[in-house]
């Protein structure tokens, strides 16, 4: 089996650029022998991976390799697609998220998600962020709601740009601003894990850079998993990288190693642009 064993990953020191010594990184997400089916078609085969807290993990691989599908199994977003089925074990903080009796609403509060195409609700900027707080009863008063909205917009580095027009339509924002608003919306309900499905693929280079800087800041408080098509982006933002190919996890290791000395020939071919 080509997948790096989980034991090995725990031993490897995480890469933290500058700053104070790295805090410990306990296991956050632990996936064991996972298979995923769309009807009869197996889209993911025997996935084994273990991701740690407060690190950024990037999923790379060609289109259709299953990286987005895998990302969406982590907050059970695939549940809303009829005819899908999951086998194996997926643990988050030691709890099997596919066990019977698991409330997907509680799971999704803990595991937030940002989508490829920014999808603000056709409401005001304020209401976009307040929505998650309201439906989850997370603000006891109007003042608290306002505070939490501001805090989330600040955390997503968009507060300065929108503070004077909170009650204008979110659809009037630029693409990059809309995506940061969607990040603010996801942060508002204080998740622990943030799943990002190609969050910058529709953005220009400057907006992309802002999102990448934001990811770097956010990992202090969140465990981030990002799907990306862009190899440079994976190299820039992530601590660990997982390479998917035809529904299989080919290799998972520290990003540095994945891009300089991958173990698998297939990984090397892909990151150097010889295939895929």
């Amino acid at each position, binding site marked *: 089996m080509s997948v790096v064993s989980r034991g090995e990953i725990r031993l490897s020191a995480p890469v933290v650029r500058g700053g104070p010594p790295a805090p410990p990184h306990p296991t956050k997400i632990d996936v064991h022998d996972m298979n995923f089916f769309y009807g009869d078609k197996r889209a993911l085969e025997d996935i084994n991976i273990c991701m740690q807290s407060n690190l950024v993990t990037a999923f790379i691989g060609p289109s259709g390799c299953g990286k987005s599908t895998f990302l969406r199994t982590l*907050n059970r*977003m695939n549940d*809303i697609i*009829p005819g899908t089925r999951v086998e194996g074990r997926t643990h988050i903080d030691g709890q099997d998220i596919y066990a019977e009796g698991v409330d997907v*609403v*509680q799971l*999704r*509060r803990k595991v*937030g*998600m940002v*989508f490829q*195409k920014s*999808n*603000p*609700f*056709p409401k005001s900027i304020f209401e976009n962020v307040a*929505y*998650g707080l309201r*439906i*989850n009863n997370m603000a006891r008063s109007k003042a608290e709601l306002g505070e939490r909205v501001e805090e989330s917009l600040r955390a997503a580095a968009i507060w300065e740009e929108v503070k004077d027009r909170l009650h204008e*339509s979110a*659809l009037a924002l630029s693409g990059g601003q809309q995506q940061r608003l*969607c990040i603010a*919306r*996801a942060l508002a*309900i204080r998740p622990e894990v943030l799943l990002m499905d190609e969050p910058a693929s529709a953005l220009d280079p400057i907006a992309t850079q802002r999102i990448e800087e934001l990811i770097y800041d956010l990992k202090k408080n969140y465990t981030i998993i990002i799907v990306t098509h862009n190899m440079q982006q994976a190299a820039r933002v992530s601590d660990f990288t997982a390479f998917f190919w035809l529904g299989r996890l080919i290799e998972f290791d520290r990003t540095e190693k994945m891009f300089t000395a991958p173990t698998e020939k297939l990984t090397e071919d892909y990151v150097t642009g010889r295939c895929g």
Partner: protein
Amino acid sequence: MDAVSTDFRAPDLGTRRRHVVDRGFELMALGALLLALAALAVLVVDVLSDGAGRLNWQFMTDMASRRASSAGIYHALAGSVFVIALTGALALPIGVAAAIYLEEYGSARSKLSRLIEINISNLAAVPSIIYGLLGLGLFVRTLSMDRSVLAGASTLALLALPVVILSTREALRTVPKSIREGSYALGATKWQTIWFQVLPIAMPGILTGLILSLSRAIGETAPLITIGALTYVPFAPDGIWSAFTVLPIQIFNWVSRPQAEFQENAAAGIIVLLGLLLIMNAAAIFLRDRFQQQGRG
């Protein structure tokens, strides 16, 4: 012949004939259009010339009378507006809830759901008098609603329901998947997603469908005659249990009188009914335009 003539102006019987056919078809299509427009124009002009003289404030505010010159339309106009408002109030929640179930909760691919869908489409085409007979049996007799506004509105609501359900399903389908996913990803339940995100976006489409089905219902006479609303009611309804009459029935009553003065009243009544329809359709167009602008945004 090897080479085609280079003089494009040279007469060629083959192409000339084709041009004649081409022109002929254009004229035929134009003729068909003008015929339809002319019929409409004759109708409007005829009604206006007959009824415009009777159309004044007294006509709008007075009730029915045995003397044509002092008869008014107020009771029928109030009856129509009351019945149609109640029809909408009944058809909207039931139709929207049924459509939400079919579209969001029911499995779209199940045989039962497909069967229901086909049946709803067929119901939309059932002759309105059938609904009248159903209303007579169910509302007037079994539920003892008598010839009340409620019985009339319930019957018309049944008539409007299929169209409301179909147009609501259509409107729900236009809400992008990304909006639903965004809501679910924030820990929303299905009901919260539908109530807070999907319905507000679909609402202009739903209301357009509702108004169009109501503007069909407002001109309906047959089902209301069937439930017994043809009786002479010279007053405006004062509650949902009140007896009532509506514009098309009042017009029908006047038309069936032999005196020329009542014919004038009928024409004036038609103008009022057309005006009401125009207002409702304008509202539907306004809502649809707003919907399209949102779609672009």
